């Protein structure tokens, strides 16, 4: 059973469509969306349309900080100016049904040995960043014994793995390589961002888990970032958000 993992779509329709197509061709049967469906990009309605469809089909969807900010103005406090502007713009665009959908998203979902969460499992509603082995260890500790924690929030793909030592170590995955992830070890995968890659590579990032064979494959999918950036500018969103897509950073 192949499970496609998408995080940080950020209203980027072109990137989401490219990743979904790639995952479909790769044999994805199940889907999980790891938060931040909206914010930054110019297509919140179309992106939510797609994700809601998958949710009705049984896909896992968890809540991200930008999803909260898109329904609750108070949650946008503390965001940077561009993110705040994008959140305000997104709030005006969403229908009541879409707002309800976002407002009803859970912070975590547990399915058997997998925990899905946007940021750290240690404080799902606080959206702490997992940016180092210490934070990864804390998140794994709080995962209730799950062998796998799949998350987003940090936009660079990283696989933290627990060996014999108590401290997890980070591994920068190579796109397209199926990494064995046996369940007797514990794994925390930051799957990378679909809609706003920040590691200098413009291609959209997602990951595919094969829970029978116990492998995890990180993918990079080139998409029409120029189209997505053009829409951001046309919508009057901060220019910086378009530049980020162009540079992948």
């Amino acid at each position, binding site marked *: 059973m192949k499970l496609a993992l998408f995080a940080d779509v950020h209203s980027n329709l072109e990137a989401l469509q490219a990743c979904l197509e790639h995952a479909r061709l790769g044999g994805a049967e199940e889907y999980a969306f790891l938060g931040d469906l909206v914010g930054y990009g110019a297509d919140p309605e179309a992106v939510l349309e797609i994700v809601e469809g998958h949710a009705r089909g049984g896909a896992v969807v968890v809540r991200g900080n930008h999803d909260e900010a898109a329904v609750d103005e108070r949650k946008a406090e503390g965001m940077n100016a561009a993110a705040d502007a994008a959140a305000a713009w997104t709030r005006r665009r969403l229908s009541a049904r879409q707002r309800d959908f976002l407002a009803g998203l859970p912070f975590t979902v547990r399915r058997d040995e997998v925990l899905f969460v946007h940021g750290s499992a240690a404080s799902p509603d606080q959206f702490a960043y997992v940016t180092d082995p210490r934070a990864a260890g804390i998140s794994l500790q709080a995962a209730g014994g799950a062998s796998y924690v799949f998350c987003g929030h940090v936009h660079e793909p990283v*696989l933290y*793995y627990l*060996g*014999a*030592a108590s*401290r997890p*170590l980070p*591994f*920068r995955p*190579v796109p397209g*390589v199926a*990494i*064995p992830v*046996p369940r*007797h070890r514990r794994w925390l995968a930051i799957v990378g961002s679909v809609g706003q890659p920040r590691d200098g590579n413009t291609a959209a990032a997602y990951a595919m888990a094969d829970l029978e064979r116990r492998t995890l494959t990180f993918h990079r999918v080139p998409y029409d970032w120029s189209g997505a950036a053009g829409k951001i500018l046309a919508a009057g969103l901060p220019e910086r958000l378009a530049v980020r897509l162009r540079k992948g950073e």
Partner: protein
Amino acid sequence: MASFPQVGERIDGYLIEERIHSGGMGVIYRVTPDVDPGFPVAMKIPRLGYGEPGETITTYEQEQTVMSVLHGPHAPRYVGAGDLATQPYLALEYVEGTLLREWVARAPVAPEEVARLGAALATALHGLHQQEVIHLDVKPSNVIIRPGGEAVLIDFGLANHAHYPDLLAEEIQRPVGSAPYISPEQVLGIRTDPRSDIFSLGVVLYELATGGLPFGSPTSPSGLRRRLHQEPIPPRARNPAVPEWLQEVILRCLEPDAERRYGSAAQVAFDLSHPDQVTVTDRGRRLRRAGMATRFRRWVKAAGMEPSSRVRPSAHLASAPIVLAAVATRHGNERLFQLQRDVIGKLMAGDSQVRLAVVTVIPPSSIAGAESEEDIATTQRIKHLVLLKHWAEPLQLPLGKVSFHVLEGSDAAATLVDYARVNGVDHIVTGSAPPGLPLATVWGTFATKLVGEAPCTVTLIRPSAAQVASASAADPGPAGHPPDDDLSPGVV
């Protein structure tokens, strides 16, 4: 889980035939699989469970991951693996041949033999590095020489594959590997530099050439750290029969600073296969260790040695390729030569560790058919060597970066393809005439065959017809050498 199968038992689709080795990490059996893979099979069962060291499971997993994706003749072929939770095992090709350890037992061995075995081992290591694998436990008991002379690395339990999480990296504070053979980086816990294998290769060469170990068998951390700054007694001081070129190669492999070693194992194999082309420096001549000043500098450097950020083996190799310039000493034209040099110059630019082999192919000397064939052949070779060196002069390459080779062969393309394959050449740059010129047919056949069969990148230099025509009119050819009108096919 701690019990091991008996002869005659079956595990999955394998019949246990014979127990061939029992060691600390596990037991190895000869087995017969239900489905014959076409070669003999061995099964390795790790010692897991209570009372067994925890790292056994880690090395077992590491080896399984690496073996399942490695291919080529330099590692045992992968047949299958058992489930870790029920019956872990690794089924691999049983490699026929002789352990390199048996040569070491007879060391010192003759320099030619050291070169032959060393080149085979270096070629094998290059084959692994090209697949992003670093062995990290290169020693005579982990190398099998097949009856045909090819080297095979075994026991990948400590290996590192850049595409997979390094399960052994957690032992970072502690050196992992065999004390006499591990590199200074490994002593510091760094497991990501393919040049570590080149260092261990140097230890093996040293051992074969002298019968002794360059750094002994230290058992304490401070003993291990000594190799970070102290160089070994020069091989020639231990065995005067070691030629200078071989000492040069060995000590360059054993440089404490990885930057000063060979850039790739293929370059080591190249030097071991072309002793006459090795540039001997003070390193090859000295009969004592370097002076105190050098040692002190090294010690200072070693004290500040920091793990560098991770670079994949293939990225290392990309900065240290072997480039072959196939120069048409007989049919060339200065315009073509210049264009070819321009391309080579760009490939060699910067501080990369590119090695250039300048090569030409001449007809076999027997075809010359004269009275004293040998003399004529030698004269011919020298004449073409002179032309090759003249061709390369404008590039002003430092010593040790370039070598010159006159090959004999009636089929130039086939000769070059063969040479490139044997020597691990990464890139061939050769000339080609523009269509429509008198020589175009000969060139065309040559180029088609070379491009079709070369085991690496091929760049064809092709000036425009106008460029060639104007150059031919103005220039009699390289070094005043008149263009040869002998059109024997296939001669470059």
